[in-house]
């Protein structure tokens, strides 16, 4: 890990907890940060940061293409494909692209060399700028099954970036989330003050523990009533790095696609302070766990 380079991943058991709100505001509160939207199924960060588009590139996967003249119908490829993406119907090999995992096995197994591979676009990555924030956004095309190739590409691009990176992760705790936090130095888990919030928090908590990532919780939309997510943190001895109150004004700014940090000094201070606390935790982790 290069000096001064820090990756912070923002997670939540589910969407709607304020993960994107927190990520974009943190990124905006830090000088020269990089914001990366890994929530490729529903990338929302750009709606707030409204970045310029400086560069755009498509992300491809490879899928098999059959040469009908060479194919003799032996069906070895069909038998091989563990995802049932191939079928030999009416003397013709059919490829179901949307369930193909692009493993390349069918091309290897075919004794007739009848299968070659072709690129297919599944989405894109755009690069842009929003004031002090550099923005990378991954977008999966609707109807595509898996955003993993886009996330892998985003992770690779992040490795080249200096400074502080904020990664807005997909919701949940599935494989796409694991790919997103692969390089993270620290994870922020965002939780809502409901029983759902606590249950979802528990899931991402298990995930970061499994991956041995240092982490802390931000409790969002806090009300006066009891907070099941906070109770969960107390019970497990989890560090709460921030508490954001339920606030109609913040909600409205957010709903309108504004960056709160850029609209008011008060919010600027709130998120800067939060970042300072997180940075302290990261430093601490780097010392005890280099």
């Amino acid at each position, binding site marked *: 890990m290069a000096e001064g380079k820090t990756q912070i991943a923002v997670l939540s058991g589910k969407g709607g907890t304020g993960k994107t709100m927190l990520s974009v505001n943190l990124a905006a509160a830090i000088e020269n940060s990089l914001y990366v939207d890994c929530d490729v199924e529903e990338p929302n960060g750009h*709606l707030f940061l409204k970045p310029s588009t400086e560069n755009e590139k498509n992300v491809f996967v490879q899928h098999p293409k059959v040469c009908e003249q060479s194919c003799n119908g032996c069906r070895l490829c069909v038998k091989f494909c563990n995802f049932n993406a191939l079928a030999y119907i009416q003397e013709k090999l059919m490829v179901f692209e949307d369930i193909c995992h692009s493993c390349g096995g069918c091309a290897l197994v075919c004794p007739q060399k009848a299968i070659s591979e072709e690129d297919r676009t599944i989405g894109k990555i755009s690069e842009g700028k929003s004031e002090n924030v550099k923005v990378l956004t991954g977008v999966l095309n609707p109807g595509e099954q898996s955003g993993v190739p886009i996330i892998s590409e985003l992770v690779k691009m992040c490795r080249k970036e200096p400074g502080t990176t904020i990664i807005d992760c997909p919701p949940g705790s599935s494989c796409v989330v694991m790919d997103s936090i692969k390089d993270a130095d620290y994870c922020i888990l965002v939780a809502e003050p409901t029983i*759902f919030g606590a249950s979802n928090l528990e*899931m991402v908590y298990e995930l970061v523990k499994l991956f041995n990532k240092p982490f802390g919780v931000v409790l969002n939309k806090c009300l006066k009533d009891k907070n099941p997510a906070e109770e969960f943190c107390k019970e497990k001895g989890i560090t709460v790095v921030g508490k954001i109150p339920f606030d109609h004004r913040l909600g409205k700014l957010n709903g309108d696609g504004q960056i709160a940090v850029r609209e008011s000094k008060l919010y600027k201070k709130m998120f800067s302070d939060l970042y300072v606390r997180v940075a302290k935790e990261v430093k601490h982790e780097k010392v005890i766990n280099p």
Partner: protein
Amino acid sequence: MKKLLILSGKGGTGKTTVASAFIKLHNAKVYADCDVDAPNLHLVTNQGIKPKNSDYYGLPKAKIDNLLCVRCGICMQHCRFDAIYKAEVYKVNEYQCEGCGVCELVCPNKAVTLQPDIAGQLTLYDDSEVFSTAQLKMGRGTSGLLVSEVKKQITSPSIKTDLAIIDGSPGIGCPVIASIKGVDMVLVVAEPSVSGLSDIKRIIKTAEKFQVKTALCINKYDLNLEKSKEIERYCDKKQIFFAGRIPFDDKAVKVVNSGKNIVDCDGEAAEAIKDIFNSVYGRINGYKHTPNED
């Protein structure tokens, strides 16, 4: 039996609250939670009985036998998912492995085999009501298949009912596609915000691909009236059935946290959900004219 799927593009919009309210209102006999990554419906449906659990096997995982492996590295070169790495010996990272079997195919020494892998748990409450749910194991990818299993569990039982209610999963990827397949109608729960609007556009596009009838309602509509209007106009343009608006209700959080159903307490939100349910229910049954349907 008609199947109504409730989706939201993203979580946190109140989808599960709406789903559980519908279950209560309809006194539903059959329902399911297809959010296998982060199921929540069981938290609010008060299942008293002990469920039947069964292991769900996902795709297999590769395993390398060290005694047979000659460390040639061919498997690592061919694995497209970076799942094989070299420590002292060659190893498979279980979280990266997709079970494609290419390594097994290329290994010159038969040192690789694919082993069955438990990728999650299917749960079925099968009493006077049928409730099907599941939990995917941490980091297991193929949740679409598990979603299909969850749905299968509600089609087999003997209970006769006219409407099954399915709580969907967030996103637009494979689990959502698996939950949309074969349902009669999708109800999208939208949130009146910039991101809410963007999310529903993507989810509606996905639903269009599968040619499923779509209805939409807005939750907490009064938190942002302009955005709510915008969503309504979008529905109008897309000829999506607009089922209604639910106001923000401070009490709702309290009610849900105490493990109660939102329709158990009086309030504007509860009333609105009742109206939405009635119109959606009418709508889903209004499609009787489609041929080849019972």
